[in-house]
């Protein structure tokens, strides 16, 4: 049986509503805009926020890339990519340069993004103050009053206990000197990439029904203290065992037999491009 779907799965009314929320998000950088999160054919918590953003934005001429923790080939990324490709027929790529629309979970690609690209990030917990204050009605007020003591206090408490900020990922940022924002669980390594990025960055939380955005060239500063400045993960003196790259985000690989540690690019398409490996391109209008 052949079932016909609307272009990009969602009906046009839903897309319009999501775009309207996205526009508002762009107008108020870092502010969480509520939206009516739809039921998706994947479970909530598996990227439905990002998926809805992508589906509402995508056009027939877009070139799509989907990554999960730096990998184009993970099951989650492949499934999302397949769903979008099947309902739009757009071309999908692994090469970051070629993509116009990139949906990502927990990473910002190593290749600098351009003004012709949009990055969509999947967000599990959009509220950066949630651990400090469980009540949504109160956190909304704290944002409205720009009362961000809690954001700094959480990091202060980490320093009291461990003498360092212990946010592994999702280290909160101050956007445009106004809203404190959860950058999604990207490593601290990726936080500085958000600052004055040339691309539009949209963040979507399906379960929590929130959309927020960083328009191009937005000032984004990671929260820190004068004497405990924000620092990315220490990857100095380490390089990728496959392509030799340094100054990129590396995964630690431990050899099960020898116990030996080595490092490898987390961004697989970046690594493959450096090694001259042919990257997968699929579909497109003519296919």
């Amino acid at each position, binding site marked *: 049986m052949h079932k016909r779907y609307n272009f990009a799965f969602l009906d046009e009314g839903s897309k319009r509503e999501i775009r309207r929320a996205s526009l508002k998000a762009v107008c108020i950088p870092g502010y969480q805009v509520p939206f009516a999160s739809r039921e998706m054919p994947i479970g909530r918590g598996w990227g439905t926020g990002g998926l809805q953003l992508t589906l509402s934005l995508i056009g027939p001429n877009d070139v799509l890339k989907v990554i999960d923790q730096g990998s184009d080939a993970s099951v989650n990324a492949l499934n999302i990519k397949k769903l979008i490709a099947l309902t739009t027929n757009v071309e999908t790529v692994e090469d970051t340069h070629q993509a116009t629309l990139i949906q990502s979970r927990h990473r910002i690609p190593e290749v600098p993004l351009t003004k012709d690209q949009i990055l969509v990030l999947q967000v599990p917990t959009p509220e950066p103050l949630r651990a400090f204050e469980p009540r949504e009605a109160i956190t909304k007020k704290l944002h409205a009053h720009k009362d961000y*003591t809690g954001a*700094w206090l959480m990091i202060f*408490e980490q320093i*009291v206990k461990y003498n360092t900020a212990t946010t592994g990922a999702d280290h909160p940022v101050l956007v445009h000197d106004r809203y404190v924002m959860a950058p999604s669980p990207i490593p601290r390594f990726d936080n500085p990439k958000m600052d004055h990025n040339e691309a539009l960055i949209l963040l979507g939380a399906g379960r929590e029904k929130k959309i927020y955005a960083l328009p191009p060239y937005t000032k984004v500063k990671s929260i820190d203290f004068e004497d*405990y400045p924000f620092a990315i993960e220490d990857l100095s003196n380490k390089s990728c065992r496959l392509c030799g790259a340094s100054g990129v985000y590396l995964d630690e690989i431990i050899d099960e037999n020898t116990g030996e540690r080595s490092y490898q690019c987390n961004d697989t398409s970046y690594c493959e491009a450096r090694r001259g490996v042919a990257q997968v391109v699929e579909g497109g209008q003519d296919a």
Partner: protein
Amino acid sequence: MPKTLEHNFVEQAPILRLEDLNKSYGDGCEYCSKEDAVLEKNICPKCHTVHALRGVNLEVYPGEIVGVVGESGSGKSTLMQCIYFDKNPSSGACYLTPYKEGTENIFEVSEQEKLKIKNLILGMVYQNPYLGLRMDFSSLSNIAERQIAAGSRNVHEMMDRSDELLSEVNISKWRAKEAPKNFSGGMQQRVQIAKALSSNPPILLLDEVTTGLDLSVQARVLDLIKDIMHEFNISMLVVSHDLGVIRMLAERTYVMLDGKVVESGLTDQILEDPQHPYTQQLVYSLL
């Protein structure tokens, strides 16, 4: 010379001035809107509106400890919580000299200005330490919270100040990283006091700080409050239902009954020669 004559009240302007403060729960009616309406305690017999505060006028002069005494339900906590913006008064005004030279009614300024006043000008110690402390955060962080709110972004400075204040309130350095939930009631009150003092506010509000503490612990907390007053020259408004506490601390006292101030004056005088029948009752029960 008796202690109460040390200050020359006439020459100075009050640092805190309350004018005709009213707080009611309910809409009121024609009957109880009249100034001399007879109520059942503080409840309107016709419409059952609770009149928790009725036309309260009160002044605190610089460097003074002022007491407010009254039975349970007379409106003492409501008074404090209105000044500290925890509750919205129904009508009335409050002027603080350190805020715009006392020219603006602090009940009518923006939420952001109220936050500033709360963090920089007022300090509050609640009857219930659970209202004043984050029980799961370290004591250090609890004290730093107000400094962060007041704009500090230097961890070392804040830790030094917190250590200083903890030693001021006799809490061992070794327990600074512990959460107040592990502490006794008296220690929790002392952490609250340290927290309230941490941003150097010129005015301190103390609501029943010693209620529920052992007598010996009570005495130590009261001594601490007196030391602080002398050392930091802070003006204080101290609320208690216990005339003994008020006698120890306050130079001037207001006596409240059913939301109204029924008598005020030098504490010694009130104790020697109470005018209002209710005060007479209070004083005789103390003897």
